[in-house]
């Protein structure tokens, strides 16, 4: 079974990612057996059908898509995956933060696509908590990417206060 990093550990995982092949449309594509991460257009087109078919729901957002499109569904989804078509495409970081901080999504946010060790730290800070590492990479080694820095300057999903607020309390303590 494929493995991913989840909550800082390597675990087995059976979620499939559905992508539309050439010629397939959201309305007509065959829905595979769950668990499956669906492309946003498929989910939007066939919400009711999918909800009755699957026990757990998961959708993936491409980097040009926005969390806004899932605003009404946030509580129904178990997993929202964020695709990184290339690791240098940084839109997914904003998407993940918005999902957590604006839409208060409590489920798993999974990075998929060109997911590499050296970006994991940033991903985690933005609220991503599962990482489907690119298949050709050593997933055990990549774990190290989660703990590169022991301290950070900015507030983010993993740290509610920027360093300057925490420095202050330390100094006055």
């Amino acid at each position: 079974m494929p493995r991913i990093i989840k909550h800082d550990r390597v675990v087995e995982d059976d979620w499939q990612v559905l992508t539309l092949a050439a010629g397939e449309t959201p309305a007509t594509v065959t829905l595979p057996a769950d668990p499956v991460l669906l492309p946003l257009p498929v989910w939007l087109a066939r919400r009711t059908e999918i909800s009755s078919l699957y026990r757990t729901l998961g959708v993936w957002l491409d980097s040009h898509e926005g969390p806004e499109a899932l605003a009404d569904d946030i509580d129904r989804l178990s997993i929202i995956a964020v695709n990184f078509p290339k690791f240098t495409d940084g839109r997914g970081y904003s998407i993940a933060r918005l999902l957590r901080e604006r839409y208060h999504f409590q489920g798993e946010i999974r990075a998929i696509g060109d997911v590499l060790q050296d970006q994991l730290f940033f991903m985690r800070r933005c609220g991503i908590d599962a990482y489907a590492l690119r298949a050709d990479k050593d997933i055990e080694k990549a774990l190290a990417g989660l703990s590169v820095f022991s301290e950070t300057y900015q507030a983010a999903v993993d740290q509610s206060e920027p360093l300057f607020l925490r420095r202050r309390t330390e100094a006055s303590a």
Partner: protein
Amino acid sequence: MYRYDNTDQQIINERVAQYRDQIGRHLAGELSVDELRPLRLQNGLYIQRHGPMLRIAIPYGMLSAAQLRKLAEISRRYDRAVGHFTTRQNMQLNWPQFEETPDILAELASVQMHAVQTSGNCVRNITTDHFAGVAPDEWTDPRPYCELLRQWSTFHPEFAFLPRKFKIAVNAAAEDRAVIRAHDIGLDLVGNEQGEIGFRVFVGGGLGRTPILGKLIREFLPRRHLLSYLDAILRLYNRYGRRDNMYKARIKILVQALGIDEFGRQVEAEWSQLRDGPTTVPDVEFARLGGHFAPPPRATLPAEDAAHAARLRNDPAFANWVKRCVHPHKTPGYAAVTLSLKALGVAPGDISDVQMIAVAELAERFSFGELRVSHEQNVVLADVRQSDLHEVWLIARRHRLATANIGLLTDMICCPGGDLCALANARSVPIAAAIHEKFDDLDYLHDIGDISLNISGCMNSCGHHHVANIGILGVDKNDEEWYQISIGGQQGNAATIGKVIGPSFYAQEIPQVIEALIGVYLEHRTPSERFIDTLQRIGIEPFKARAYAGRDRRRTAKVDNREEEVINA
């Protein structure tokens, strides 16, 4: 200046370890060339014409003497004993060994320095006025704000992979010396009627192949909201900036496409969700940062030093230097000094290891152990007593750091160009040298007076040629080096993009063309006019006519064709 606490130091040390590991994995074949590239660039490491180039960050241009000594030592041990100061107040080493770069970063970390985000598609080094804290026309010190931004931008988790690089500059003086409107975000520190400190915010400026001046997006942003407001701008840029075409990827293109009003509306909408959140900066933090930039213990001195005045009368060479290289200071009896890195025969902005040591000593003896790098590629001692100026001059002169040409024609901003840079269309340093040779007479230079002449070896515009009174741009014409000339650009409050005067010139023609342009000015000027004033009064035509007189130009040059590393530069 800002001193690291344990946390700052720990973060920088961990950065060195991370980079060392990345280089190690690359050498072990676990990290491909393409995977390493953005990572090394975010540590300042380029691969250039002759091999690697390392760009070291000098946050907002501030250096301590100890740091400069370390740079001298590094340049000697790991390079060819010379460094190059850039228009972004950084230092470039042109000959490091790839495998040794982790060691260089470790050396830098030992003096609270790094190469973090000096390249790559992320927030770059914050720049500001090289007279920050001492300029008489400044109303508050911009450096605490620069340091706040340095920390906020360092490893910002959301904005490490933007569509393109992102440059921020801060000004707090009546006269903008940081070219803030040539930056992605320009911040102008101002006060409102209630006496609150805040910023006028400009967005969407940039040079490169589409030079655009930043547009005003907010008239007054209270300082406590600075970070949340920048988060809002950057989030929009990160999500909606173009990623399909790197030449259209800067924020200026997004701002242009939406229009400043619509962009401003979207920023306000995003910001309304972020403002007053945890990233709101309390006054105590500004006070803490401000404490790091408290004025040094200056003496109480008379405004005019009698001995200094006498030397000025008796020593014309010294007086000439004072006229060009010594600048007013807000504390009576003190002055700021520019050490010129524009001596004849030296690439503009280059500084040797011996000069670095000499400057460090000067700073220690005469300027509280600190110095600054200017975006014009010179070095500034900001706190020199008037009574010490003569001695500073004597020492600087021995090290060829006292050319009395600051603000004059030979104080050129010049990029490394084709001698070193893989993106160049043409060389720029030899052009600077040829011009310098032609205008090597100081009396003549002083007579010509204030003028800016900047040179870039390609459209990327690292030499700021767009905002120069005379701008020279290297272009490629059937694999030969040609140069396009623009005039009428300027920096400062009246920042303007220069206009191209016509078809390009052959390298050998450039000094004569410059001479022709200067000739028109000298003939037409009134006693109080600078080059730019005369040009604005009489228009571009007389200059154009003289530049092309006797030259046949029909073909225009292809402006650019090198695209390889541009994506990552």
